[in-house]
């Protein structure tokens, strides 16, 4: 079932967005194509268990959530000199040809209704270009959302033998917006031969905001794409992180952390396609749920017929701090080449009572002990983060939520 096209959404709207930003013709065309596709596209698939559809995207009222012409954000970008980090629109002047070639090449803009909606309407986002042999650390992008709805598109291109570590933080600004909001974030990474990308994302939007995020990477020969995804904010988050291992000896890690409380709903997904020889994937997600929060996790490792000598691992662990929280996890492994070493596992559980007693028996009050166990639970994720500021932010948010 496709969602209803909001009445305030028309070709005129899209042209107005594109004109206001003085965009090249090809981008307008791409937006209009995406708009047209909305008629036939479906919302993303969600996990269903008998009698239950865990994430109900159909229930979202896009009519009131989407206000395409009043999008507003305040985004700061810090980067070393030898790497290009520009607002998407500004980048078009100088890097128009490259962007035209790669925009939508990794992430199919018509993947589903929400990606097409995002492509048609995006007004913010970042273009990151890392030239050959450049090593860039600590690219930091911090976005504040200041409107009813905001659509963002980020494109990362790394040339041969380059490397970059990126932090993208998203939160709500001070702007006074009553009621529910919608944030859409598409990220595509085109990793060139022997390049390395760590893309860390920390979403801490206010709890009136619904978010949709699809991040997808195309890993070239000998390249590595490591994703780190932290979700603490929003009322409902649907997040998909995907890597296609297209180059021989390419690698990916998809590392996720979430911590839901109140009545937050977090639907997080990690997927990898092994399509070449000697590729490696490691999917690690750790989540904590308190109060009435719910989480849904789907992880997919797809080993293609030509993916000889594959290594692929997946682990997901959810820790429940309250009896009212709920979690569903579905790790999937599809193997079409026998030359594969793979594992996949998911657990859902509570704080271990014996662990807790051990700590309490050493004088540590129960609540402190529980908090230490929760913080410790996230350590495998924290240890993966290369941008120090990102790790510190995530630690702080976790500690603050435990208070």
């Amino acid at each position: 079932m496709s969602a209803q096209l909001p009445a305030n959404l028309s070709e005129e709207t899209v042209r107005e967005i594109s004109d206001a930003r003085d965009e090249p013709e090809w981008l307008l065309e791409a937006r209009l194509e995406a708009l047209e596709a909305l008629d036939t596209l479906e919302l993303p698939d969600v996990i269903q268990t008998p009698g239950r559809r865990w994430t109900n995207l159909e229930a979202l009222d896009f009519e009131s959530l989407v206000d395409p012409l009043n999008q507003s954000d305040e985004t700061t970008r810090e980067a070393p000199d030898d790497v290009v980090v520009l607002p998407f629109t500004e980048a078009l002047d100088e890097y128009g040809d490259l962007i035209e070639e790669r925009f939508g090449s990794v992430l199919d803009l018509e993947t589903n209704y929400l990606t097409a909606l995002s492509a048609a309407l995006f007004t913010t986002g970042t273009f990151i270009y890392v030239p050959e042999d450049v090593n860039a650390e600590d690219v930091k992008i911090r976005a504040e959302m200041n409107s009813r709805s905001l659509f963002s598109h980020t494109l990362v291109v790394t040339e041969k033998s380059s490397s970059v570590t990126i932090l993208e933080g998203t939160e709500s600004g001070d702007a006074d917006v009553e009621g529910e909001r919608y944030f859409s974030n598409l990220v595509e990474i085109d990793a060139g031969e022997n390049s390395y990308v760590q893309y860390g994302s920390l979403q801490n939007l206010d709890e009136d905001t619904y978010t949709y995020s699809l991040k997808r990477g195309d890993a070239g020969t000998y390249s590595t794409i490591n994703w780190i995804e932290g979700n603490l904010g929003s009322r409902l988050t649907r997040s998909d992180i995907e890597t296609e291992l297209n180059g021989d000896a390419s690698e990916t890690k998809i590392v996720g952390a979430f911590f839901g409380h109140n009545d937050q709903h977090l639907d997080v997904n990690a997927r990898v396609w092994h399509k070449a020889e000697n590729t490696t994937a490691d999917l690690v997600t750790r989540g904590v749920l308190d109060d009435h929060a719910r989480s849904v996790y789907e992880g997919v490792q797809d080993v293609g017929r030509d993916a000889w000598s594959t290594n692929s691992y997946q682990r997901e662990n959810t820790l429940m701090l309250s009896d009212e929280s709920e979690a569903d996890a579905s790790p999937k492994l599809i193997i079409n080449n026998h030359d594969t070493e793979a594992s996949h596992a998911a657990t859902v559980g509570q704080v271990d009572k014996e662990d807790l007693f051990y700590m309490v028996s050493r004088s540590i009050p129960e609540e402190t002990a529980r908090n230490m166990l929760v913080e410790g639970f996230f350590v495998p994720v924290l240890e993966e983060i290369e941008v120090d500021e990102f790790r510190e932010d995530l630690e702080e948010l976790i500690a603050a939520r435990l208070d």
Partner: protein
Amino acid sequence: MATLEIKNLHARVAEEDGEQILRGVDLEVKSGEIHALMGPNGSGKSTTSKIIAGHPAYEVTDGEILLHLEEGDFGDLEIPDDARTWNLLELEPNERAALGIFLGFQYPAEIEGVTMTNFLRTALNAKLDEREELLFGEDEEEEEEDVGYDTSPMEGNVDDGEVGVAEFQKLLKEKMDLLDMDEKFMQRYLNAGFSGGEKKQNEVLQAAILEPSIAVLDEIDSGLDIDRLQDVSKGINALRDEQGTGILQITHYQRILEYVEPDYVHIMLDGKVVKSGDASLASELEDKGYDWVREEVYEAA
């Protein structure tokens, strides 16, 4: 001098129709004494130790556990007259620990993501805080601080607590040297990937840091090779000799008693302490076995 007094302790597994495990345990352990508690599997030794520490899996159905304190038990800290006898069964496990009860676990928990340093410093500071609160009531001067900020899973709350990072590192190093433990343990996660022997050494290390009045050590000797057994024994003797800790050592075997010589030996059978004596009782038991005790006890009855 602190005294742990267990009187007529009855307990069962805390669930519906839970099995009755303890049927009237009487035992008294004072600071500076070493007691060995022996008995066959299922006699209630481990249960006794867990109940002393406050494990929630057991329900006490009768009897009591008292801790008597005297001036000097907490160094220079004055102990008010009305805070010298405590009914442990009314206290939370962390409060019991703060008053000087320590349980060395037979199977210590392995906790990923919490470093030894963070854990032990947090424990030591929590002990000092809680003890003061128990002895003197709520501490009104110190407002609840926002601890959300300076916390790190590696180091803990940097500014939090009486014992600072530097001071603590020094203390830790001292105690580790004593136990012949490698410094690399400090940055490792609590018991995670430790060998059986390393875990037991770590239990003794924790006791050395927390300086309990009474340490209950549940089969601290199981799974140790001879070298490790000697290290651990040295640590236990040091607890008694240097800190005046009273030791209640639960064991199946005579072996450790050669290195940690007990002042008293108690034998448990079917949920009761049925026989007590001096170190020679352990040797006698080694020779004659539990059947001898059983016969003696039940014939006498």
